[in-house]
């Protein structure tokens, strides 16, 4: 069980103090897949970093299974947007990295790394260096590397944002399958609502800065999901609308004052020519 209580965070930028997270509390039960969606720059990655222990909250506590989080730890492994693989190590050695740090003996390390590379279907590329892999493959290795640590909590920070749509769709299925198999608790940060609906049990919409939980959605559908199903499409639309307000708030703060959000309307067809071609 992950519990966040009264988390706040303030940044100093150009001498001004910017509040990134206003008091935010959250509970995530074991085995849940929770997505955080929010407008860009709203502080969702900061929140994830605080859970990972890479960043410190100004106030509030994070506890995992009752133990307070004070720094990075192997019970909470992060998969970053860029795979963050080490270019001087092969895929296999990259997956072994965390195990090596934990002092796991060589043979066991090798066996476990192979097992997780197999899980992400990259056994054939065990000896390839990261630059020899495609973006999607690299992200698979990063996932294998995280899973090999057998963490209590898997933190994913927009892991598929840099991938093309086809690769992303493949990885969504993959992550669903892996989650079903390992039953890890996952916190998934994204700005892609479809992705969140496809993957998650719960979706938390964060407000524009300072981030707080604006609304929570539960997705009671089984997996694998079909996003064209009316129920899911409806939820997706609701989340989009909830998020839209926050995105507009960000845009209004950043763009010229004459900017207004225009809702969809009927555009005249491009070939409307008042009969001048008769």
């Amino acid at each position: 069980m992950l519990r966040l209580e009264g988390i706040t965070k303030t940044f100093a930028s150009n001498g001004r103090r910017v509040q990134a997270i206003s008091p935010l509390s959250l509970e995530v039960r074991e085995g849940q897949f929770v997505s955080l969606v929010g407008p860009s720059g709203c502080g969702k990655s900061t929140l994830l970093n605080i859970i990972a222990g890479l960043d410190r909250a100004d106030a509030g506590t994070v506890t995992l299974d009752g133990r307070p989080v004070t720094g990075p730890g192997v019970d909470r492994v992060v998969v970053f947007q860029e795979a963050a693989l080490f270019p001087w190590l092969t895929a296999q050695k990259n997956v072994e990295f965390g195990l090596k740090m934990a002092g796991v003996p060589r043979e066991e390390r090798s066996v476990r790394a192979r097992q997780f590379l197999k899980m992400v279907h990259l056994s054939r590329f065990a000896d390839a260096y990261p630059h020899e892999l495609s973006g999607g493959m690299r992200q698979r290795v990063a996932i294998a590397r995280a899973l090999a640590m057998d963490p209590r909590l898997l933190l994913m920070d927009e892991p598929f944002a840099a991938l093309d749509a086809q690769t992303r769709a493949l990885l969504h299925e993959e992550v669903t399958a892996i989650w079903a198999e390992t039953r890890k608790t996952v916190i998934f940060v994204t700005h892609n609502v479809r992705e969140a609906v496809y993957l998650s049990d719960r979706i938390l919409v964060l407000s524009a800065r300072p981030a707080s939980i604006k609304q929570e959605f539960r997705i009671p559908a089984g997996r694998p999901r079909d996003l064209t199903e009316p129920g899911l499409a409806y939820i997706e639309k609701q989340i989009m609308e909830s998020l839209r307000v926050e995105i507009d708030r960000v845009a209004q703060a950043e763009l010229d004052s004459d900017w207004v959000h225009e809702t969809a309307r009927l555009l005249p067809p491009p070939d409307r020519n008042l009969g001048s071609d008769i």
Partner: protein
Amino acid sequence: MKRLGFYLLLIVIWEAIYRLSLWPPYLFPGPLEVASSLARGLADGSLLLAVAASFRRLAVGYGLALAVGLSLGLLLARNRTADELLGPLVSGMQAIPSIAWLPLTVLWMGLSEASIITIVFLGAVWSIVVNTQAGIRNVPPLWIRAARTMGAKGSRLFTAVVLPAALPQMLSGWRLAWAFSWRSLMAGELLSPGRGLGEVLIVSRNVNDMAAVLAVIVIIGVFGSLVDNLLFQRAEEQTRRKWGLAPA
């Protein structure tokens, strides 16, 4: 093959100019004379002795520069105060051709082995410091964060992530330092007596033996680029290939 032909052509042109006798042979020796001078020097061992003496100085000076440069670079990369205080000094020192120190080192240490080694050391050490520091400073924070979430910290984090990540840039610093120390060595040897390639150069000039001068220059060029090619270029290439960086 194309390259070999080109160099053969250059030698032929050289020989042709020599045959035109525009300058007296003691000012402009032909390739055959240089080759025979080279062969003579190698056969009687005098050139080999000089090479050995020069290489010894180079090895000591460069080795010291590596040890000091790496530790100083580490210190500057890790300690902000040290960087603020010493950083400008180091980049200033880097701008000074090390041979400029020779008058001082001669005063302090005499016309000795130590004085030349100091010059070699001063020629090499700064670019090692600068590149070690920059290499460590430029390690992407993302890798460090990733390593930390996987339980790496302290010296393990340093040896398992920071050092390998900084290696490419450190390597180019070492290579640069090698070129600098080779130059410094020659300047030092020319200006202060003692066995070595520089001494052979001076003595040959004094007896107007231009063929021998050119023979030494050939040796300097060949050894310098041999080490550069076999050691540094190869190491750099290997890391580049492994990392998937574009060839330099």
